[in-house]
């Protein structure tokens, strides 16, 4: 490579690195960080939300059980993928005192209804389209799940649903069951 081109490439890259650092630092400055997994136990905010068929879902009714509170929406692909797995967990551990409260966040309720018709499940569905409970739980993305122990404390928190971590999720549930 002739020296003329080499010098141009070098100064090009230097300029680029400087601009990139400036660019990223201005955006990171505005960043609102939150931890992905929190192991400190805090009391889960209580709620009463409408469920299907005019029922009410009250979190306090489930005190004494291990509860997976999952925030989901019909347009969220990983949420759709988590449904069969959540069903499987309820089948396996329901009798041992495990329950899933799947809180739907759809802004257009017809989409949630259509989705539930297409995917019948054993989960307890609740609806929070205004995001009141989602705000209290400070959700960072969808799906966002919280595993509560029998005392109603948040022990595990997950943003996202990853097939590679299924065993880990199951182990977390098991650890709270007996």
């Amino acid at each position, binding site marked *: 490579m002739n020296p003329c*081109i080499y010098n141009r490439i070098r100064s090009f890259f230097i300029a680029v690195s400087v601009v*990139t650092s400036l660019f990223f630092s201005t955006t990171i400055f505005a960043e609102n960080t939150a931890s992905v997994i929190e192991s400190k136990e805090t009391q889960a905010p209580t709620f009463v939300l409408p469920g299907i068929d005019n029922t009410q879902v009250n979190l306090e009714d489930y005190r004494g059980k291990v509860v997976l509170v999952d925030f989901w929406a019909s*347009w969220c692909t990983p949420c759709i993928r988590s449904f069969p797995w959540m069903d499987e967990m309820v089948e396996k551990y329901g009798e041992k005192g495990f329950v899933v409260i799947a809180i739907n966040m759809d802004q257009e309720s017809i989409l949630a209804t259509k989705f539930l018709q297409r995917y019948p499940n054993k989960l307890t569905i609740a609806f929070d389209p205004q995001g009141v409970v989602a705000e209290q739980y400070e959700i960072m*993305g969808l799906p966002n799940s919280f595993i509560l122990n029998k005392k109603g404390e948040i022990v595990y928190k997950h943003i996202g649903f990853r097939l590679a971590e299924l065993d880990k999720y199951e182990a977390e549930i098991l650890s709270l069951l007996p």
Partner: protein
Amino acid sequence: MQLKGKTFTNISITLAAASCALAAPVTAQPSELGSWDVDAGLLIYAESDHQVQAYEGALSLTKQIDDERSINLKGIIDVLTGASPNGAVAQNKAQTFTRPSGNGSYITAASDTPLDDTFHDTRVALSTQYQQQLSRLWLYSGGAYLSKEYDYLALSINSALARDFNKRNTTASLGFAYAYDTIDPEGSIPNPGVSVDDPNNRLTDSDTKQTLDLLFGLTQVIDRQTLMQLNYSISDVNGYQTDPFKILSVVDSNGWANNYVYENRPDQRTKQSLFWRTKYNIQPSGQVLDVSYRYFWDDWGIASHTIDSKWRVQLSNQHFIEPHLRYYCQQAANFYRVYLDKGQPIPEYMTADYRLGELQTYTIGLKYGFPIAGNEFSVRLEYYLTQVSGDDGLAKGDGMAGLDIYPDKSAIMIQSFYRF
């Protein structure tokens, strides 16, 4: 041959799969992990007056390997035929030109724009793109590309990183691409500025060109219905950028061309652009308006504005229509000349290629989509008009009296896509 380079398309496609993987169509089943998604496309491009016709077929395969990773393979074949302006200016007499290969010649009738019809070529391109979610907020994409036609070989690699901020409302990205092209034209590289009749009008057999691209992108969710993007890109091109088949007429004071010389473009070019795009979901209809503006400038003196807009309207039964309007205007490169004057020294850089001249283009099109066997099929018909402008006073003397030396060009484009 058209000097092609696909470096920007590489960066673009690089990060394209990012958004595709994250949102499955609401009405369809989520794509299975481990299965291949196929995208097939066809393009037919045809200019009026027996000019360029191009047929392009493309096949793209994408596989979501697991939660974090996906891979894409793409193959393209395109066939080019027809005639393209050779840079010489129209005359009130017939003109004879030798073919670039040196074998034979062709005649342009009086008052016609000289067109070189030696453009018959087939091009094959292959590319691969790999994408990985490095962590919840960091996305990496990298790929390679190869394109081969009879006289041109293009190789490139690209790499990009994107990071989300503000609960994923903001995405900052940085993309880089490097390309190495080799041109080996039939009849070898011409000696620039030298007459086509000169026996010493050939240089080496082949030459190369290197391109370095950098793209800084910022995508921002404005509100529930609005998404905006702002990109800045800079590109450094070094090497042979002249079109070896293009010439310029050398015209006397009475407008008659009695000599033709090969064009010459600088060896170095720095291009920059600022691009702003908005996607707006109109509620309650759900129609989507997509508008973008690009300002481009380089050190060859070219500056351009592009406004591109699409309006997608969903119809019943999962059909949709999408009208499309695009406007482009460009100011000429500082070494652009309609022709050279006899008696004046031959400039160091000169080109009569209308694509580097002053022009405005208009595209109007309509796309129609509907499901076939549960998969999306769409077809798009577009009309593309190019208006070349310049000083009409240059059509001087008896040689060019009454001639349109800035001929317009129109083309029809048909595209069709099927995804399954």
